[in-house]
């Protein structure tokens, strides 16, 4: 049980492990491409990346929260909420649609902030508090659903979901920008360093003068922002929001984070790993879609793939 751990080698191993996850993704693409021609076509891979972008953006907030030893179970509801609220929040007089985008992101960030405040001030376990937030948002969705008589015609959102910038899909561009920001936040700012500290030992962090409360609120607020942005991208990609649009991203975002090597117990992890985790998850989801088998077998194949990849990508992890 007392495994020898050295951080700089942990760092190396981690990097190594993240590299390994990327290698696995590549391997998976090659194997799938050989077995199922068309799977590894450039167009398909780009599409997978676009899908992974949404997962990756939602999982960005989740990464911050999990590194701080929390968890955000409200992301699915926040995504749906964002997609449903946007048409209501887009003023008719704004041709760019940016006002609606800003208002929606502000709203979801506020939801995240409330999550953080509840966790810090009421000292309720994040699992329960974010679950309660999700439940309350579901209630709000009953009111909103069916209320929006127009499908999305917000140009900013359509551009986000469908547009291209210098030949690159906007989803991927957005992901690149957000991903860089989150990576920088984690590794180049005091806040990021604090999140690692809090996730490792919040009591010790507090006694060392770390502003634990504000840092946690910030992490949950960012998670709310990321989920909101994910919702807008989905809305743009589908041109239509509906209740339940966020559902696959709840367990998906957590799985991407953990598959990417971030410890579910907090204190250890990287966003680069999450990126690989998101791509991995999206890839195997697509893979089981193209396998012609009954639903039962597909489910089994999916489970087996996750387990297999987990085994491949590293066994020296915590025993939880």
């Amino acid at each position, binding site marked *: 049980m007392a495994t020898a751990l*050295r951080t700089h080698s942990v760092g190396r191993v981690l990097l190594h492990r993240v590299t390994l996850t990327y290698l696995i993704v590549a391997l998976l693409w090659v194997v799938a491409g050989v077995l199922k021609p068309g799977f590894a076509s450039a167009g398909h891979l780009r599409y997978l990346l676009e899908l992974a972008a949404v997962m990756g953006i939602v999982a960005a907030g989740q990464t911050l929260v999990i590194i701080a030893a929390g968890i955000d179970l409200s992301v699915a509801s926040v995504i749906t909420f964002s997609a449903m609220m946007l048409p209501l929040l887009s003023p008719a007089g704004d041709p760019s649609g940016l006002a609606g985008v800003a208002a929606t992101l502000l709203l979801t960030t506020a939801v995240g902030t409330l999550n953080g405040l509840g966790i810090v001030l009421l000292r309720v376990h994040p699992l329960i508090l974010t679950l309660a937030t999700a439940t309350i948002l579901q209630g709000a969705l009953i009111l909103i659903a069916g209320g929006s008589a127009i499908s999305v015609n917000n140009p900013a959102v359509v551009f986000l979901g469908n547009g291209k910038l210098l030949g690159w899909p906007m989803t991927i561009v957005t992901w690149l920008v957000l991903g860089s920001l989150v990576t920088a936040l984690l590794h180049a700012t005091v806040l990021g360093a604090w999140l690692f500290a809090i996730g490792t030992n919040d009591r010790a962090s507090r006694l060392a003068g770390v502003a634990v409360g504000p840092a946690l609120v910030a992490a949950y607020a960012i998670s709310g922002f990321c989920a909101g942005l994910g919702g807008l991208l989905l809305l743009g990609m589908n041109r239509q929001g509906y209740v339940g649009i966020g559902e696959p991203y709840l367990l998906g975002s957590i799985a991407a984070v953990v598959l990417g090597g971030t410890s579910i117990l907090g204190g250890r992890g990287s966003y680069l790993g999450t990126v690989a985790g998101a791509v991995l998850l999206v890839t195997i989801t697509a893979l089981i879609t193209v396998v012609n088998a009954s639903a039962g077998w597909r489910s089994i194949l999916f489970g087996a793939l996750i387990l297999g990849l987990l085994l491949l990508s590293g066994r020296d992890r915590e025993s939880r």
Partner: protein
Amino acid sequence: MTPPVLATREVGKRFYDNVVLRGVGIEIRPGRVHALLGENGAGKSTLINLLSGVLQPDAGAILVDGQERRGLTPAEARRLGIAVVQQELSLAPHLSVAENIALGAMPRRGGFIDYGQLAHGAGQLCARLGLDVPLDLPVERLPLGQRQLIEIAKALWRRPRVLILDEPTSSLSAHEVRTLFGLVRALRATGVAVLYISHRLNEVLELCDWVTVLKDGVVTADQSLEGSDPKALVRLMVGREAGDLFPPRGTGGEGKLALAAHGLVGESLRGLDLELRYGEVLGLGGLLGQGQEETLRALYGDLPLRGGEIRVDGRTRRAASPGRSADAGIAYVPADRKREALLLPLPIRYNLVLPALRRLATHGLRRRVREAITAASLIREFAIKANDPRDAAQLLSGGNQQKIAIARWLPLSPRVLLLNDPTRGVDVETKREIYARLRRMADDGAAVLLLSSDTLELVHLCDRVAVQRDGRIVAELDRGRLSEEAIVRASLGMAA
């Protein structure tokens, strides 16, 4: 001479490229208290981990009753009668005192836990250790010193033939140490072999019969302790003559009021009054668990108060939190470094800059180079024995971890230092450095409040000592009246 019950033959141990033990032989015999000495990071804990099956040697052999044991596991070591007091690390915080004492060795009857025997046995052990706590209390609610006693009770529970104590007294007060020594002597009389690790050399001289000294992973002395004195021990460990442990005292106690507490009421505090001045080292003494730790936490802003007020520089403090205190130049070194100070899995470097992180950054952006330089200079100044500052802090030896807990505050140049047993598990040379530094800081105008379980520290380092009992300060001993006896008397509630 009786044959050794537990011994090593030429054992070696390395972690990656760090060779920690080299050809170490040690023989632990029944009826003898055997001291294992060495500077921080010399390899003592590693050696006992080998002896107790927690780690496996890379070379050499472990011998139990003269027989070589390969692949020893903790469970097997236990069966062979080897019990180790690893400090607080192996307690289950949410389980009760009784359950922890019997952890892994529950008395059973017909497949079930025998609660009768558990209550009886655990109760008896607590009594023998002078530990007066309810058996059903979760251990997380106990102060560090009492947790340490439970760790000892846990080792004794198994009626060991070999008892290994890794710095068992490092957070016990003088009174508890007496009790423990009585117990160890009684065990010795019944033929138990004791291996005793401590950095408190006079304790070693008082209790132990034999000494093995480790230096950089090699045995440099293995001899009887008869006729030794502390200086001789230091010479054995460090290889040169020992200087005075404690620095000369300055004027002290004349500065302005830094912190003043009036009628504090809260967890374990029952109307506490205390004044701390700039330029002085104020000691805080007393028996274990009289609320001394709570006093420090209250001053640091970490304890919710139900009454009383705290003045900082003469101004009443309102919303208090550790963060605000740290910003105001107040530093706090907790006793329980593993749970309250260090971020064990994170790099040493990171641990060293955590409190100063914001100070070192510009506009919230970290300055890695500055951080690295700061950490490197702290490692040098405190002689922290680290292979690589990027290693996880948990890989450091206990004493070196303790150095981090103190060193990390220095970049903030705090004006008030609240220290809870800051030299716990620290070797003599480092202690000397820490004492000198504290004195220098006080001379430079800082206010130092030192809670210590080591009466020597209180007597020889402090300008003044306040003795706490039952949540109140019951005596203040100024320099003229400072003596070990006076502190113990006040602690026990006798007139000074």
